[in-house]
């Protein structure tokens, strides 16, 4: 089983290595063979592992294979092992499975791109990094995976490296992610300082962090700080407030990338980390509260921005941020499995949304602006239907997958609120409900904007001004021929649509009386066995929450239909509030002015004043002073013998006077 894990890890790496070294000489077909092969085999082995795990008794489902010692330094000993437990198995399935689908889809989407091989080598690399992240058995290799997925994300965002926007977005993504890395490193340092190990559990024979924890002393400052530092990493990776702003920009990357990395997998790493490190978070209730709060805020905040966005991918990006907020809310109230569940379903429908959007963009030859769309339901039938299913799923309409997971989160929140009678939890729940409505609204705004009404585009390829004139561009200017995507793209759409529909069925059916049907939670139960603080929602609470959320969702759809049902009409609106939201609350600009520019200003000023005027010029002034002294003293060397004799006499007189005075 664990050998399979190693294969899951290494096959994508191998694929990356082969493509990276020699990919440029391969034909597209050969590239695909390798990339699909690597990813497909990884998925296959992951699946085998998963199912063989299902076959083993619950107690024996966790395994940890130690591969080698990474470093041994004093009492800091660290070995790398592959951890396979229900949580990582779930993640692996998502990563490789969705990854495979997107690999397949991308073959069509990227068909004409000259960087075809490069794209797939990066994609394989991403799969490798993500697998490393989720299967690491210690925080350090988690950090390594964490960094490597960041790199993959960076590479893929900046895939079209001559587009200034893409490059800027890549830079932003990298830097913000490194802020997360920083948090993670500090957390790791704290963990090591406190517990002396970095392994999660004591599977390796030594100690493990989680087994070293002392549950009785919870809530200390240190534990809170550790948890918060970890969460800084999560916030950066999963685009939570205040570190979310790279994700919308990341949409500059190719759409399959957005689907895979910036929707389905990588951005959920934060959710995974909180789940993985939940014993630490359990000890820090304050931190959890903060997480829940930030999750809720982010959910609402991002959803509000999504309402007025015009770029379809950006709408989806904000929606992703918003959904990730849900997941953190769930984890904030100790319901980790709900978070992971939403992660799973979100992977399906959000990947689908992106892929469908990609199909639209593909059909419109790079057009992403909603104002240039409309009426595509006839021409892009498969896309239309799959998009609709996904939109329903995300809007929480039963029985689609999103309903199950979102419902579980919201009822958890309400249960927390009612049982502990915390006003904050009520607020959070309310936020969740409100966000659900907003989600449904902007999703269907998008849906109507794209597919309904009449085609508003000029019919000309508008996005064709590729920055690189030399690049053999496939964007040929001229009359657009709007067409459905090839099967290689639609098949993944259909598969994901199916998953979006039924993927939620592994959730809890307690609501309709089948209390024992909650396979997902049960599967993950061994991982979260130590969580005792989660409150279970009573049936009444569940019903209340569910009814409200579905109702609000429907309301949102209705509103969208009212407004945009007959097609999207863009009107200039100078309402300041509208402008505020449209411009994403001017957060980017504010950050630029408050942080980036001051730093650069400092650098430039220091460069000029400190380096130049103080140190460099100071050194030169000293040298100049000495040379000046020298030149002045040289004048004493007049060349007149009599002056020289005078100098001697002065010396004599001084010496004699010294003796006379000294006596």
């Amino acid at each position, binding site marked *: 089983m664990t050998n399979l894990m190693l294969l899951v890890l290494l096959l994508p790496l191998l694929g990356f290595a082969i493509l990276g070294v020699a990919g440029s000489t391969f034909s597209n077909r050969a590239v695909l063979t390798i990339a699909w092969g690597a990813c497909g085999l990884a998925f296959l082995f992951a699946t085998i592992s998963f199912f063989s795990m299902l076959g083993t008794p619950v107690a024996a489902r966790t395994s940890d294979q130690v591969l080698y010692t990474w470093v041994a330094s004093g009492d800091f000993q660290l070995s790398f092992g592959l951890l396979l437990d229900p949580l990582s198995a779930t993640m692996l399935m998502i990563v490789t499975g969705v990854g495979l689908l997107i690999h397949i889809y991308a073959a069509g989407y990227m068909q004409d791109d000259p960087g075809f091989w490069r794209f797939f080598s990066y994609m394989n690399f991403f799969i490798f990094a993500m697998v490393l992240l989720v299967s690491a058995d210690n925080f350090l290799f988690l950090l390594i995976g964490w960094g490597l997925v960041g790199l993959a994300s960076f590479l893929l965002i900046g895939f079209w490296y001559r587009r200034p926007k893409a490059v800027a977005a890549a830079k932003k993504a990298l830097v913000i992610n490194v802020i997360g890395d920083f948090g993670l490193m500090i957390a790791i340092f704290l963990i090591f300082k406190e517990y002396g190990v970095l392994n999660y559990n004591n599977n390796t024979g030594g100690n493990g962090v989680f087994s070293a924890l002392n549950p009785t002393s919870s809530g200390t400052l240190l534990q809170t700080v550790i948890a918060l530092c970890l969460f800084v990493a999560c916030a950066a990776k999963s685009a939570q407030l205040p570190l979310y702003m790279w994700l919308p920009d990341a949409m500059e990357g190719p759409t399959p990338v957005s689907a895979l990395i910036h929707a389905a997998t990588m951005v959920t790493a934060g959710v995974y980390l909180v789940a993985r490190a939940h014993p630490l978070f359990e000890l820090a209730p304050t931190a959890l509260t903060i997480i829940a709060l930030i999750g809720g805020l982010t959910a609402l905040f991002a959803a509000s921005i999504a309402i007025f966005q015009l770029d379809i991918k950006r709408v989806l990006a904000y929606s992703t941020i918003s959904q990730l907020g849900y997941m953190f809310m769930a984890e904030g109230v100790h319901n980790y499995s709900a978070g992971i569940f939403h992660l799973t379903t979100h992977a399906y429908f959000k990947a689908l949304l992106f892929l469908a959007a990609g199909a639209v963009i593909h059909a419109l030859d790079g057009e992403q602006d909603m104002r240039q769309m409309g009426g595509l339901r006839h021409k892009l039938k498969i896309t239309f239907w799959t998009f609709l299913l996904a939109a329903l799923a995300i809007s929480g309409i039963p029985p689609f997958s999103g309903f199950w997971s979102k419902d579980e989160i919201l009822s958890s929140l309400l249960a927390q609120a009612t049982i502990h009678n915390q006003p904050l939890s009520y607020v959070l729940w309310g936020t969740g409900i409100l966000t659900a409505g907003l989600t449904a609204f902007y999703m269907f705004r998008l849906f109507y904007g794209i597919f309904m009404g009449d085609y508003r585009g000029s019919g000309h390829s508008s996005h064709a001004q590729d920055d690189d004139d030399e690049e053999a561009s496939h964007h040929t200017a001229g009359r657009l021929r709007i067409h459905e995507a090839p099967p290689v793209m639609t098949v993944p759409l259909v598969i994901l649509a199916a998953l979006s529909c039924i993927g939620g069925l592994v959730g809890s059916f307690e609501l309709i009386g089948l209390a024992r049907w909650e396979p997902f939670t049960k599967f993950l139960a061994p991982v979260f066995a130590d969580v005792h603080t989660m409150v279970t929602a009573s049936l009444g609470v569940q019903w209340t929450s569910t009814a409200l959320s579905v109702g609000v969702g429907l309301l949102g759809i209705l509103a969208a239909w009212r407004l945009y049902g007959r097609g999207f009409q863009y009107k200039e609106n100078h309402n300041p509030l509208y402008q505020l939201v449209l411009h994403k609350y001017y957060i980017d600009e504010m950050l630029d002015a408050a942080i980036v520019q001051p730093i650069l200003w400092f650098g430039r000023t220091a460069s000029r004043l400190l380096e130049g005027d103080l140190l460099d010029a100071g050194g030169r002034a000293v040298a100049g002073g000495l040379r000046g002294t020298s030149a002045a003293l*040289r*004048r004493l*060397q*007049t*060349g*007149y*013998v*009599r002056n020289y*004799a*005078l100098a001697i*006499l002065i010396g004599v007189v001084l010496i004699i006077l010294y003796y006379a005075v000294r006596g």
Partner: protein
Amino acid sequence: MPLSAYLIVSAIIFTIGVTGVLIRRNPLIIFMSIELMLNAVNLSFVAISSYLDSADGQMFVFIVLTVAAAEVVVGLAIIVSIFRTRRDIDVDDMNLLRG
């Protein structure tokens, strides 16, 4: 007379020599001033020798005399040779080398 009397006379003549070196511009006169200094020292030597009842001082005077003679030979030779090329003997003119 106490020894100090002779020594003071010697010091006065010595200082006159020193001053002469400093204020005269003719190398010959400068040179004479140096001779004056040497002779002043000789006076000290003889006086000390006499007061100490020791021959060393007189030996010194004798040697200094010889040395002074040799020095005069060389010094005058230098002055003469410079005079040949320069046609004037102000020491202040000799300041090619400076700085």
